[in-house]
């Protein structure tokens, strides 16, 4: 539809909370060129957040929400975990269903919205942690790639089950000691970005969220390609500073270090995806 759904009844304007009024008057609706540079000047689509102070995942969520090219017609599907603490704070249509079924729910939503609104663009974006995406939800994640669902899947990889208290996940690095891996993890980190390529994603990126502008570019590419071609996958390193023993102000340094090693920026695109990305660049939208 349009951002008109955020317009408040005039008679109620004076009694509505400030952040709701700001959504109408100061948020960036109807502007596909919106991006992280708007963050200091506009109303964000996330109101506060309930994550730990300095949590890189909160940075990722803010950059992603600032970068959505079409927020007024974007549905966000999430899963259980730290991310699910944030979704009640987001001003868009969000769905939390179960743990690990996020890509299945998103598939149903996307297909029905295409059927109900054949003349409109409705973007469906999945935001989930590494446990939800790669462990318990791997089946639904990959099957949505196999089926070529036109959705964008974004994985917040903090290399641990953080919300449940710091247990080993499939994306934990080999040798790291966490709960449930008291001798250190016995096997390698799952290369999910490579699996996504092999499973049929048309655009795949791996990065940390140390550079807001780079996050914006990647998110826009992933959404535009998903809209026109097929599934896209973005793998973000959002370290759990709590579980790896860092202070609130250490998150950025941690990500910058990993930028040089296991989260060095990596990007893959199919020819069809490249065509879309080039076109959008020419249009000035990326």
């Amino acid at each position, binding site marked *: 539809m349009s951002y008109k759904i955020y317009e408040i009844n005039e008679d109620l304007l004076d009694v509505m909370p400030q952040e709701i009024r700001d959504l109408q008057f100061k948020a960036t609706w109807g502007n596909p060129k919106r991006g992280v540079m708007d963050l200091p000047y506009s109303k964000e689509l996330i109101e506060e957040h309930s994550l730990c102070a300095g949590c890189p995942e909160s940075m990722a969520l803010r950059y992603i929400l600032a970068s959505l090219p079409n927020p007024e017609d974007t549905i966000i599907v999430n899963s259980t975990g730290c991310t699910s603490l944030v979704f009640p704070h987001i001003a868009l249509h969000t769905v939390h269903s179960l743990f690990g079924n996020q890509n299945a729910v998103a598939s149903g939503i*996307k297909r029905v919205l295409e059927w109900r609104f054949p003349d409109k663009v409705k973007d469906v974006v999945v935001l989930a942690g590494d446990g939800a995406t790669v462990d318990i939800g791997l089946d639904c994640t990959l099957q949505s790639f196999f089926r070529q669902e036109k959705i964008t899947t974004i994985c917040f990889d903090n290399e641990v089950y953080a919300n449940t208290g710091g247990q080993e996940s499939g994306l934990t690095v080999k040798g790291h000691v966490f709960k449930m891996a008291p001798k250190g993890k016995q096997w390698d980190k799952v290369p999910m970005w490579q699996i996504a390529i092999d499973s049929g994603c048309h655009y795949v990126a791996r990065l940390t969220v140390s550079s807001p502008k780079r996050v914006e570019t990647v998110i826009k590419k992933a959404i535009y390609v998903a809209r026109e071609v097929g599934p896209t996958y973005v793998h973000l390193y959002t370290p759990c500073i709590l579980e790896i023993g860092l202070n609130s102000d250490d998150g950025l340094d941690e990500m910058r270090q990993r930028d040089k090693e296991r989260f060095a920026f990596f990007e893959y695109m199919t020819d069809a995806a490249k065509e879309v990305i080039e076109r959008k660049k020419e249009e000035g939208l990326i």
Partner: protein
Amino acid sequence: MQTVKEQGIIYNRAGQRVVSPDYLLFEAPRTKHFMTGSEAVKEAVKRASVDASVSYPITPQSEAAHLIGELWVEGYVGVYFRGESEFGVMSEVAGCALAGARTITTTSGPGTLRAFENFPMWAGTRIPVQLVLMARGVNAPLSIQPDNLEVGFLLDTGCMIWYAENAQDLFDMILAGFVVAEQPSVHVPIITAIDGFFVSHTREAIMLPPEDIALPPYNPYRAPMPVIDAEVPPGRFLRDPFVMKSNYISYATHASWQWEVRSAIERSRPFAKHYLRGLTEEFGDPDADIVFVACGTAAAQSKEAVRLLEDEGVKARVVKLKTIRPFPIEELRQAVKGAKYIFVPEFNVVGWLEREVRRYLYGHSDAEIIGSPRVAGGMTMPAEVIAKEVLKLTGKEVKHVI
């Protein structure tokens, strides 16, 4: 599903004329057909203006799911695909319904259990999804035979459960199911159950309305929860979301929400009564003090047993339960007035229906409640076996029975 209006007549996207549920169910002329329960599912879906269906293979329901796929090819169903597992399918179906689609799927036995986490989620998100459940045994040991143990597991998921006796019942219940489940004051999922194979795979006579008329399409904007399509304001939880907060308000919210789902099922009673022509059906001599309380195939076999017993000079009757959730409490209490013996024949080893009957008749009936006969794992329940249970009790000599 959108509609087109031409010269005062409304058509759905499949080009069928939209008629009222009452006309489709009660007034439209019907013609006689001969088909399986699975084919009856197809005929119902064809007339139900269905937006979406997601399928997964399992015996015995696959045929119904294939046939819905054919309807998709023919343009009667908007969205259709095969999912990865029942867990995935029930989640995909949830996505479809959340996005505003009238949605149907089918499953059986182990598939139901694989999908289980989804059912309370369906109820909690208040989506009026319809699940056609063709009950069969659950593992282990491996069984694909008729057995309705799984229905006992589903009783408290927050979904409505209706139980069809035969293909005709199933056809009518699928149509009525959408209408009742989608009432704004109800708006919870509906499970329409049958006994697998006995109903899904056998052919019987069935009366069908014409195929060029259909139910009014689902209007998601009448739903009590915002539809997830970005066309309406989202639920506003910006301030102090109660989700995940450890405080009394969050606990109370969760508890009251669960109560609300159960209340919604209760509120379905008057609608179900109307569209099913009562939550129960009685058969046999109304004065008989021997009563069979049953659902599904067990009710059908009990009716046959009543006929056999009549030959033996024993008066008996059947109270068939059409709905299990909501449970027809008042109807059952009224129906068993004067009963001395209540038999509850069932197709499972635990006797979940007997437990339900005991629970709701406690303090309301002096009859002896007998959870018998009970068969499982694919065993049939011949009418003679039911009659024999009664004759044993009355001390009568068994003549032509077995």
